[in-house]
């Protein structure tokens, strides 16, 4: 395949750029583009063209995805050309060259001969980077032959790296002796888990073992517990008895002792106490009696010394009253001084006021000036009235000019205002017109529609050929009825069907005939089969010859002409004998053939018959056809005649059927429209009438120009405005007139009020003169003056009144003082004559003192008398007590069988001793009862007596040891039970082992996936190395041979070539061979540039190898010569030119000097160059 033309229609920076790549055998196309010219876009374009634009292409910066287009014409090596366009998309992206319809992807794939996108890019594209990477891979791989050959044959630049990478991935998963790899780790974990699982699993026997141990321990524990109870019982009995032995001994002793005190009287327990109390009470009573006698004696002495004055006590109330008055007296004399000062100051102030009013009058005469209350009120009223009157008069006066001015103002406005006009007929006309206004627009548009319909209708009708016909005429048009048309339709159909049938028959007959003729021709070609006629003709000639010969033999005359004629029947023969012989043979031959080929003859005869028959049948059919055609002609003619009167040339009945329907519906529509038109025009006239009327009415007001042309609706609006305006004007006039009348009325009222007020003022003046005369004012005095005088007078009289009140209080005080003095003197003369010389207040005070002393003495005397009475009583009580106590003591002696009180104490002691012994005995018995475990004391004592006291201790010790042993065993059993129960409770059906088993399964599951991954990688590695080896075996020879030559060419002869050698490890590797001295250079010893060139040589050799057996695919080269010196660049260009004889080479570069080099050194019949220009 090669690309004849590459169309960069809309891709990357390109718009409608076309590259003609059709030159040359395959062609070496050097495409130059400056750095920004889109060289890499063009490279991508080739890939995308052939294999589709990638989903996220970046070549959409000018043309959006939907507009992206690439196109090409490609040619296979067999010369087939395929033109197509590629658009961007997911499906259906391959399109025909005109971009109008779809192409199948397989159509294109036939040209690509199994090379897919990845392979295309890898194997048929090479760039500078590939070269460098390829070169480095050669060095790193040490020139290993297998890989290099495989790389060369596939275009893979980093095969070694890929192999290592896959191997590394596999190694990360697993290594046979590794520890840290994923699979190895998992295997380790698995091992641990299994171990754990084994440990976690609880064997059944163990549970049984623990269960049995527990049961045994429980049984034994029960036995031990029973034994323990028995021993403890024995032990406790002995312990009891041992404990009781001392008690029993003591009990015996007490019983003996009690015998001595059996005669002692048992006295009540409180007996000694009682006795002591009685003796103490006796002592106290006697002592109290003595004390009381002493007290009486001393009290009586004190009473005799008390001092009491009887007169004073009798007058006690009077003395106390005087003492109280004494305080009041003292306070009154102080007040009197203050009152006197106040009174004289008030009098001074009054004098001052009076002098200001009337200096001719003294204070005593001031009374003359006092005015009565009604007079004061009269003056106040008049003052107020004066204020009111003055205010009203002033207000009214101020108002008058305003009113006059307002009236003036209204007058002016009125005179300036326009006079309203009468509306006359306008409102009625408007009301009528309003009905038609809204119809006006509809009417206009209706009329317009109707007009346009009529126009269309006329055109339609003209189209039908009835330009000048009215609707009525058209309606009357004598077109054939629908039934007639259908009749014709059937007739036409029938004729046409017949015709078609006949034509089909004819076609069949012709085919049959030509088949017959073909067979006849075949017979002919096979060798004409002789006919009976042929035989007859030959026989005739033979017979004729025989007659000639016979005549000659019979010597009958023959003419030369006859002979000559006969001879002519057999060209080439010279004599009659020869001719006859030939004739004879021919006749025989024909007869023989006739006989031999009788079948063929018969077949041919049959064919000839068929041919004749066929021809006749054909003729008959053609006649029939002619008849039907005639028939059709007649029908057509009749059909036209049907339409003649309408002047229409009819088309087929089916079409005319449609035509008639359209025609009728058109007419119907036209009639409907006509009705509408009449209605609309009537309405228009009505509207016009109203319009005229409105114009007339409006013109009266003469306010608008051009209303003649206005629409009715506008006129209505206009009239409405006029009516509104005029109504408003009228209303305004009336309002103003009303305002004026109102103001005038107001003015008249104000003037009359003013007059009234002025009269009232005059009246007031008279009243005022009378009112102010009493306070000494003239008639002219203003109300303010009168008020001031009245206030002064009031103040004067108030002060005089206050001074008088004060004087009265001073007089009262003086009177009280005199009264007091008299009372004191009277009393002193009676009760304390020694005080007569002393002032009244002092005497009163002394009296009070003396009274107090007498009272104190009296009270003391009373207290002492009460005390005396109490002491007498105490003596009497004490005597009674002494008698009672004595009696009680005597009764106690009797109880204790004693002679005297002194013996009582001994009796008490004996009673106590007896009681103690009895109590001790009881205690001992009780203690024994506690130890007896239910037996009576006597029984228990007897039981104890039966046991040898010396053996008890030994027996107890023995029992104690036994009990201790039993307890120890029980505690051990408890421990066993506890631990067994713990063990068993640990075996609680836990799922630990089950969980571990599950975890193991999870690990196994994960392991499965990892192992699969590992296996895939491992297999991939293996298959790849197998493929490398296999390809090497097949291709090592030719590729190395070619590569060697190319290497020599590209290095400009610096190297002789390359060849395979074994390295130190016995691996076959590629080495270079120097030209001069055949020195061998390992790849490690080559320069970077040289390894690049070695890689290129290998790639080109691989490509050549491919091209030997495969359909060519263009080789795309991207600027690989940048690092080459000129000589090597030229050599490489030449190598590429050589390859371009086998496949198309498309070389992109942005180095102009390479173009120049190529121009200079490459055969111009091979090299074609192109320039890339993007749409910018």
């Amino acid at each position: 395949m090669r690309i004849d033309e590459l169309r960069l229609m809309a891709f990357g920076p390109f718009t409608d750029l076309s590259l003609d790549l059709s030159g040359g055998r395959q062609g070496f196309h050097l495409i130059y583009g400056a750095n920004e010219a889109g060289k890499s876009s063009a490279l991508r374009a080739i890939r995308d063209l052939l294999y589709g634009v990638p989903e996220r292409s970046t070549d959409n910066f000018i043309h959006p995805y939907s507009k992206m287009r690439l196109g090409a014409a490609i040619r296979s090596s067999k010369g087939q050309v395929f033109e197509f366009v590629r658009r961007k998309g997911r499906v259906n992206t391959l399109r025909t060259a005109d971009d109008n319809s779809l192409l199948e992807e397989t159509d294109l794939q036939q040209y690509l001969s199994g090379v897919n996108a990845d392979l295309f890019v890898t194997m048929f594209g090479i760039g500078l980077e590939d070269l460098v990477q390829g070169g480095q891979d050669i060095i790193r791989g040490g020139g290993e032959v297998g890989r290099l050959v495989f790389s060369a044959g596939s275009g893979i630049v980093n095969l070694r790296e890929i192999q290592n990478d896959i191997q590394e991935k596999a190694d990360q998963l697993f290594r046979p002796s590794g520890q840290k790899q994923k699979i190895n780790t998992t295997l380790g974990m698995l091992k641990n888990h299994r171990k754990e699982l084994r440990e976690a699993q609880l064997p059944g026997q163990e549970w049984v073992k623990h269960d049995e141990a527990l049961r045994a321990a429980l049984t034994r524990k029960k036995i031990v517990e029973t034994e323990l109870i028995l021993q403890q019982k024995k032990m406790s009995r002995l312990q009891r008895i041992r404990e009781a032995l001392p008690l029993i001994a003591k009990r015996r002793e007490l019983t003996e002792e009690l015998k001595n005190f059996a005669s002692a009287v048992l006295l009540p327990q409180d007996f000694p106490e009682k006795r002591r109390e009685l003796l103490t009470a006796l002592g106290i009573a006697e002592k109290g009696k003595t004390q009381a006698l002493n007290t009486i004696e001393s009290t009586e002495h004190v009473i005799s010394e008390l001092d009491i004055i009887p007169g004073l006590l009798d007058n006690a109330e009077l003395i106390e009253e005087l003492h109280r008055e004494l305080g009041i007296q003292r306070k009154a004399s102080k007040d009197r001084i203050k009152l006197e000062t106040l009174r004289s100051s008030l009098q001074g102030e009054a004098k001052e006021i009076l002098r200001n009013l009337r200096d001719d009058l003294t204070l005593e005469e001031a009374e003359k000036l006092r005015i009565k209350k009604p007079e004061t009120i009269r003056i106040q009223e008049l003052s107020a009235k004066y204020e009111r009157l003055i205010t009203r008069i002033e207000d009214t006066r101020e108002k008058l000019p305003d009113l006059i001015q307002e009236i003036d103002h209204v007058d002016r406005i009125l005179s300036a205002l326009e006079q309203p006009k009468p509306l006359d007929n306008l409102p009625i006309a408007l009301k009528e017109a309003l009905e038609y206004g809204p119809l006006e627009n509809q009417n206009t548009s209706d009329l317009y529609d109707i007009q346009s319909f009529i126009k269309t209708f006329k055109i339609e009708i003209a189209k039908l050929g009835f330009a000048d016909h009215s609707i009525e005429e058209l309606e009357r048009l004598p077109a054939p009825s629908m039934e007639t048309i259908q009749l014709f339709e059937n007739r036409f159909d029938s004729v046409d069907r017949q015709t078609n049938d006949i034509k089909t028959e004819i076609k069949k007959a012709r085919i049959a005939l030509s088949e017959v003729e073909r067979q006849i021709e075949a017979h002919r070609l096979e060798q004409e089969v002789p006919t009976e006629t042929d035989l007859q003709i030959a026989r005739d000639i033979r017979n004729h010859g025989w007659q000639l010969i016979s005549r000659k033999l019979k010597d009958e005359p023959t003419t030369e002409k006859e002979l000559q004629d006969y001879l002519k029947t057999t060209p080439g023969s010279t004599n009659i004998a020869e001719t006859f012989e030939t004739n004879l043979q021919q006749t025989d031959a024909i007869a023989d053939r006739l006989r031999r080929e009788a079948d063929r003859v018969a077949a041919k005869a049959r064919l000839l018959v068929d041919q004749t028959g066929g021809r006749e049948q054909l003729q008959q059919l053609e006649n029939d056809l002619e008849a039907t055609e005639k028939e059709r002609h007649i029908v057509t003619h009749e059909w036209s005649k049907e339409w003649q009167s309408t002047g229409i040339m009819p088309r087929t009945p089916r079409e005319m059927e449609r035509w008639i329907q359209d025609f009728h519906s058109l007419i119907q529509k036209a009639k409907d429209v006509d009705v509408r038109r009449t209605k609309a025009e009537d309405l228009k006239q009505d509207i016009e009438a109203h319009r005229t009327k409105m114009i007339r009415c409006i013109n009266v007001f003469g306010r608008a120009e051009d209303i003649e042309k206005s629409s009715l609706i506008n006129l209505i609006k206009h009239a409405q405005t006029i009516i509104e305006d005029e109504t408003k004007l009228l209303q305004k006039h009336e309002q103003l007139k009303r305002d004026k009348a109102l103001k005038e009325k107001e003015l008249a009222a104000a003037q009359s009020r003013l007059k009234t007020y002025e009269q009232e003022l005059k009246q007031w003046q008279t009243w005022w003169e009378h009112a102010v005369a009493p306070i000494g004012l003239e008639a002219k005095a203003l109300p303010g003056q009168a008020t001031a005088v009245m206030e002064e007078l009031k103040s004067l009289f108030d002060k005089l009144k206050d001074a008088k009140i004060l004087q009265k209080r001073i007089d009262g005080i003086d009177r009280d003082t005199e009264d007091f003095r008299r009372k004191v003197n009277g009393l002193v003369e009676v009760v304390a004559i020694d005080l007569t010389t002393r002032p009244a207040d002092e005497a009163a005070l002394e009296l009070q003192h003396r009274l107090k002393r007498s009272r104190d003495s009296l009270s003391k005397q009373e207290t002492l008398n009460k005390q005396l009475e109490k002491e007498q009583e105490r003596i009497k009580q004490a005597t009674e007590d002494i008698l009672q106590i004595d009696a009680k003591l005597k009764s106690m002696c009797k109880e204790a069988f004693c002679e005297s009180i002194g013996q009582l104490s001994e009796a008490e002691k004996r009673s106590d001793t007896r009681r103690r012994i009895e109590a001790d005995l009881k205690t001992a018995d009780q203690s024994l009862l506690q130890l007896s475990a239910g037996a009576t004391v006597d029984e228990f004592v007897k039981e104890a007596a039966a046991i040898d006291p010396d053996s008890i201790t030994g027996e107890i010790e023995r029992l104690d040891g036994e009990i201790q042993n039993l307890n120890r065993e029980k505690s051990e059993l408890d421990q066993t039970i506890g631990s067994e129960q713990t063990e068993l409770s640990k075996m609680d059906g836990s799922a630990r082992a089950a969980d571990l088993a599950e975890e193991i399964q999870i690990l196994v599951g994960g392991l499965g996936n990892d192992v699969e991954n590992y296996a895939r990688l491992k297999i991939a590695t293996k298959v790849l190395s197998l493929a490398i080896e296999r390809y090497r075996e097949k291709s090592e020879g030719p590729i190395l041979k070619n590569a060697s030559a190319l290497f020599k060419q590209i290095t400009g002869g610096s190297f002789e070539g390359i060849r395979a050698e074994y390295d130190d490890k016995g691996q076959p590797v590629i080495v270079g061979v120097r030209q001069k001295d055949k020195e061998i250079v390992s790849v490690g010893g080559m320069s970077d540039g040289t390894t690049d060139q070695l890689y290129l040589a290998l790639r080109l050799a691989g490509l050549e190898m491919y091209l030997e057996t495969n359909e060519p695919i263009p080789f795309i080269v991207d600027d690989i010569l940048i690092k080459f010196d000129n000589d090597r660049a030229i050599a490489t260009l030449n190598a590429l030119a050589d390859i371009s004889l086998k496949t198309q080479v498309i070389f992109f570069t942005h180095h102009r000097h390479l173009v120049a080099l190529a121009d200079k050194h490459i055969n111009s019949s091979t090299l074609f160059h192109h320039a890339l220009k993007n749409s910018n």
Partner: protein
Amino acid sequence: MLTFLHAADIHLDSPLHNLDLYEGAPVEEFRQATRRAFENLIHLAISEKVAFVLIAGDLYDGDWKDYNTGLYLVSQLTKLRNAGIPVFIVAGNHDAASRITKTLRLPDNVTLFPSDRPYTFRIEKLNIAVHGQSFPNPSVKKDLSNSYPEALKNAFNIGLLHTCATGREGHESYAPCSLDGLRSKGYDYWALGHVHQHEVISKDPFVLFSGNTQGRHIRETGPKGCVLVSVDHDDHPEIEFKPIDVVRWEIIKVDAHGLESGYDIVDSFSHKLEQLLDENQGMPTAVRIIIEGETPAHDDMLSDVERWTNEFRAATLEIGSGKVWVEKTKFNLTDPASDIFPERASGAISELLNLFDELSNDADARRMLASELAEIEKKLPMELKSGSNDMQFDDMDWIGDLLKQAKPMLIKRLLKKGIS
């Protein structure tokens, strides 16, 4: 009216198989599944107030040695004793192999049928007769039902039997029997165990497998549980299957035909998973994803199986709200390109492709490849190489599958991704 439960194949503490742990896998939801399913059985018996419970064999895995499992069984059966519910058990092949069975003391409400001959136990007040015989050894080849007694008159007769019936795929053929043979006994109900798939063999009389109570691997898909049997006054039983499993196993097949990219396939899978979760009402589920059919995404998916496996897992995490575990993702895809390009140019890459094809078709060559894996095979545990896992190094189809997957991976890796 009388109800009882029929269960079998409990396989307590039998682990779930082949679940690969990955980030976000719902480990907790899947723990102790067989125990929780068994607890569901106990709970169901108590809440339905059934008259008794039948267990037709295989309480635990035969090779399972942890006595705790037995103790757990006892603790659960004790709950039934406290609720006054008797339990009838025949030992199955696994129980006969188990060491636990030999030492375990069962509570007194449990009747374990002896194994020397068939026995009949009666519940007089309900007029029930249960006939059964335990497996005496793990491998019983004869028809045990043959010697079961005739039906008792005037009683509801139940046959309890661990059997492969007439043989079922994937199950050892132990104690085989025939439907006619069972019918001839005149019983009203045959409670069978051993076959893990629930199956009603006959409705008159009822002969049925309850199936196992909890699926444990991908070959035990769908709901698992027990059968609730109600017997009316005319001794006519009605059955109802009660799912009691706590984890479900499902296979989701995605037909990749007509899907352009791997993401389309993941979407299609997500859609199916959503449907499945709706049907299972959000139950914890282990799914195996099988992608099959012809798709342009073939190369992309097979060249990075690991990545796409993770894509499916991520989609599952998103949709399954932490309850779905992807058991395995299988890529059974075919490459549409291989049909379009029947011809193949010669050259190094073609050599490689041809080699792949050749190896796929050559058993000897595949064996040679298998030997490459000998080292790892030696190290792997037995269970990965046999039984439920399909990693069988001597299975040449497995190697063939690996080859199919390795091819696109290698080609993608070798050829350039394209011009940028």
